[in-house]
């Protein structure tokens, strides 16, 4: 290729995450943090409850992020962030963004009460849930974000998960938040754009990030981005935003959705599924997709 051609840079070059962190190979969560901070910038404080990122960041007295991190208890991501925000307001700092960065366990299950409280008070924080669909840090236990049909260590193959994934976006939309978005690590430009947009909005902002986990999903580490992309292209994890609790926008209009089987077959946690069970999952995905299209007015 020609030597004169410039490198295509579509997202900010600044790195706020240093290498040497403790994430597994091909970790979707570490990629999510890297992209999120590219959108939020240097003036950010992160509150991290017990989750994979509490480990990835590194042991005391080291940290792999170039911004301040506050490690808090499992259920308090949102309330700690509210507290940090209140402290910053007291010293007159309105510029700094407070980011609560919790996993799906800390958002869907354990932290839901604190999150709902912060959302009700409309505290000025960015709450991000990076969703790897189980308690990966403690050994792949089922969470309420685990999708139907999935294997985890607490839902073994014979008794795989029969319940649906909790509709966290629906719950947050019911709170009427100023900004809600879903983002995927496979679409970095979209993700950085959403975090940048969230930074400029005041009030509680909720971003649901899809972060594949090779260790827990029993997938190949190199497939992380492919899985995240397939999740969007199959309609399993659509990319959309909700402004002021009512204006829905679909960011990526998938014309021809791929069959969900393509996404499922790359993961060992769905290996036990039979043809008719995959058909059932396909129907669920279709129903959810139709609902989101309807909400977006399409």
């Amino acid at each position, binding site marked *: 290729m020609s030597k004169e051609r410039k490198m295509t840079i579509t997202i900010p070059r600044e790195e706020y995450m240093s290498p040497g*962190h403790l994430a597994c190979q091909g970790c979707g969560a570490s990629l999510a943090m890297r992209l999120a901070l590219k959108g939020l910038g240097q003036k950010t404080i992160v509150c991290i409850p017990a989750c994979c990122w509490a480990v990835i960041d590194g042991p005391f007295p080291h940290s792999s992020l170039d911004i301040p991190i506050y490690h808090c208890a499992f259920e308090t991501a949102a309330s700690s962030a509210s507290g940090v925000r209140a402290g910053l307001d007291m010293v007159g700092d309105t510029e700094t963004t407070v980011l609560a960065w919790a996993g799906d366990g800390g958002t869907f299950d354990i932290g839901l009460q604190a999150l709902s409280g912060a959302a009700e008070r409309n505290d000025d924080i960015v709450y991000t849930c990076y969703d790897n669909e189980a308690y990966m840090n403690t050994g792949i236990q089922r969470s309420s974000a685990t999708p139907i049909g999935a294997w985890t260590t607490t839902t073994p193959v014979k008794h795989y998960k029969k319940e649906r994934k909790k509709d966290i976006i629906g719950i947050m939309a019911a709170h009427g938040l100023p900004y809600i978005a879903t983002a995927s690590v496979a679409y970095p430009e979209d993700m950085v754009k959403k975090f940048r947009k969230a930074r400029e909005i005041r009030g509680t902002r909720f971003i649901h990030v899809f972060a594949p986990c090779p260790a827990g999903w029993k997938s190949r580490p190199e497939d992380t981005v492919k899985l995240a992309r397939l999740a969007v292209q199959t309609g399993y994890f659509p990319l959309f935003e909700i402004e002021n609790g009512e204006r829905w926008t679909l960011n990526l209009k998938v014309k021809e959705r791929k069959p969900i089987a393509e996404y499922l077959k790359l993961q060992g946690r769905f290996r036990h599924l039979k043809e008719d069970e995959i058909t059932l999952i396909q129907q669920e995905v279709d129903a959810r997709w139709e609902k989101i299209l309807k909400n977006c007015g399409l």
Partner: protein
Amino acid sequence: MSKKKEARKITFESEKEMPVAPMSLGSMLYNKTGAWRNIKPVIDLSRCIKCGICWKFCPDASIDIVDDWPQINYVYCKGCGLCAEECPQKCIAMVEEEK
């Protein structure tokens, strides 16, 4: 960041040396994660179209842009193979690590 990042592990001789509050004093750069690797990515720059996709997707921030070319930082690359998988030119090969 004003202070230069050092790849040094911080240790304390006694508890008196420790800070009053548990706070971070240095970066994780001392942790040379390249040792985790079994296979390593090698970029064939003659076929590289400088799309920046490998740099964009590296979960370990281990691909640097040096003189407008992607360069893999083998000190920290964990060898996940994401860059090789995502490269549209397929010009990144995963080769066995010699040890």
